[in-house]
């Protein structure tokens, strides 16, 4: 079967592959899994934090990946749907140990939150019925609201900063469609992607 990954890292990865060959296969896989697991388990806060940790580990410490390759990897991870941290770990895993590596790094990255949230889920009802916990969580709802309003203000200001009428119209139209008309979010994303993409291409051509 044709494997798109093959050509991706074939040329670029040669030197690094040679360098890391002196670590035996099994130990390398274990190190991959362990590194992703530890980074995922110990990192709080968004994607970029995890990415800088991955960079520190795989570029500076293990020297399995070069600085330039990291930039390429982040560009791909940013353009793919889903979680940045998971996307980056998929590329790192593949680059170092092929499909097996990619599966191991994904597993290492998703295992800690998966286990923690499963445990929380199992005890959620008892946890929530504790009066103090319930009051704290109720209090936190007010904080979550503040964080969400803050993110909304920042993102909307960023859109308005462009001073492009098309962006403003799209923002208003999408908000009305989602809030008032309850349009399915997936439909909304597809339509906005097509319109936004076309508008962007036209703008770049005229520039």
């Amino acid at each position, binding site marked *: 079967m044709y494997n798109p990954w093959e050509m991706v890292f074939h040329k670029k990865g040669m030197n690094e592959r040679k360098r890391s060959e002196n670590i035996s296969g099994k130990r390398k896989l274990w190190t991959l899994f362990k590194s992703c697991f530890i980074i995922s388990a110990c990192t709080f806060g968004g994607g970029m934090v995890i990415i800088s940790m991955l960079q520190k580990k795989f570029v500076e410490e293990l020297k399995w990946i070069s600085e330039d390759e990291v930039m390429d990897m982040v560009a791909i991870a940013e353009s793919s749907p889903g979680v940045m941290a998971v996307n980056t770990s998929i590329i790192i895993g593949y680059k170092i140990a092929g499909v097996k590596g990619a599966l191991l790094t994904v597993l290492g990255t998703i295992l800690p939150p998966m286990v923690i949230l499963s445990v929380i889920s199992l005890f959620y009802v008892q946890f929530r019925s504790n009066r103090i916990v319930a009051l704290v969580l109720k209090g936190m709802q007010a904080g979550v609201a503040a964080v969400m309003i803050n993110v909304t203000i920042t993102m909307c200001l960023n859109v308005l900063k462009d001073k492009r009428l098309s962006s403003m119209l799209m923002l208003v139209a999408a908000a009305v469609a989602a809030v008032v008309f309850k349009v399915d979010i997936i439909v909304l994303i597809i339509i906005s992607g097509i319109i*936004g993409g076309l508008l962007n291409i036209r703008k770049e051509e005229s520039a």
Partner: protein
Amino acid sequence: MILPSLAKTFFLIGLFSFGGGYGSMELIRSKVVTENSWMTNAEFTDIISIAEMTPGPLGINIASFVGTRTGGIPGTLCATISYVLPAVIVVGILSKVYFKYRNLNGVQGVLKGLRPAVAAMVLAAAITLTATAWWGGVSNIAKESTNYVAIPISIVMLILLRKKLIAPIPAILSSGIIGALLYFLLGVEA
């Protein structure tokens, strides 16, 4: 059978999650709360609080929580794996394109074009979650259901966040502590 609908829903969420954790929040909420009723808006807000304080991205936290709750351990595995599967496929395809042509302008153009829509979706999520905190839900907005403890806490935290005097995690944590104390003193039931 819950597993096929978990798989389908979380695959779609994974495939259409753009704009980071906050950007994909409304997508997750609409599928998990509105469409499938796997959790309530209040529970969804709880998971956001919990997700901020535990490691891991929101999408995976929600997938694992909902999966365990609706289908036990098979449910967890099914939801979480379905959620990351589209990423594995798309990352593979984009890598191929990227290393062949050395650019992703088309994809990045679409993503840039999506930005206003992502802002709109964050706004939609903010409206629902704020209504949940202040009135107990969008359909509940009325003078009698107003939560006079939550509103001032949110406003103070928002001002502190805007002035960059506090980060999101401490803002949520301190809201929890201050809120719990006030609710306790006023004898409010959670």
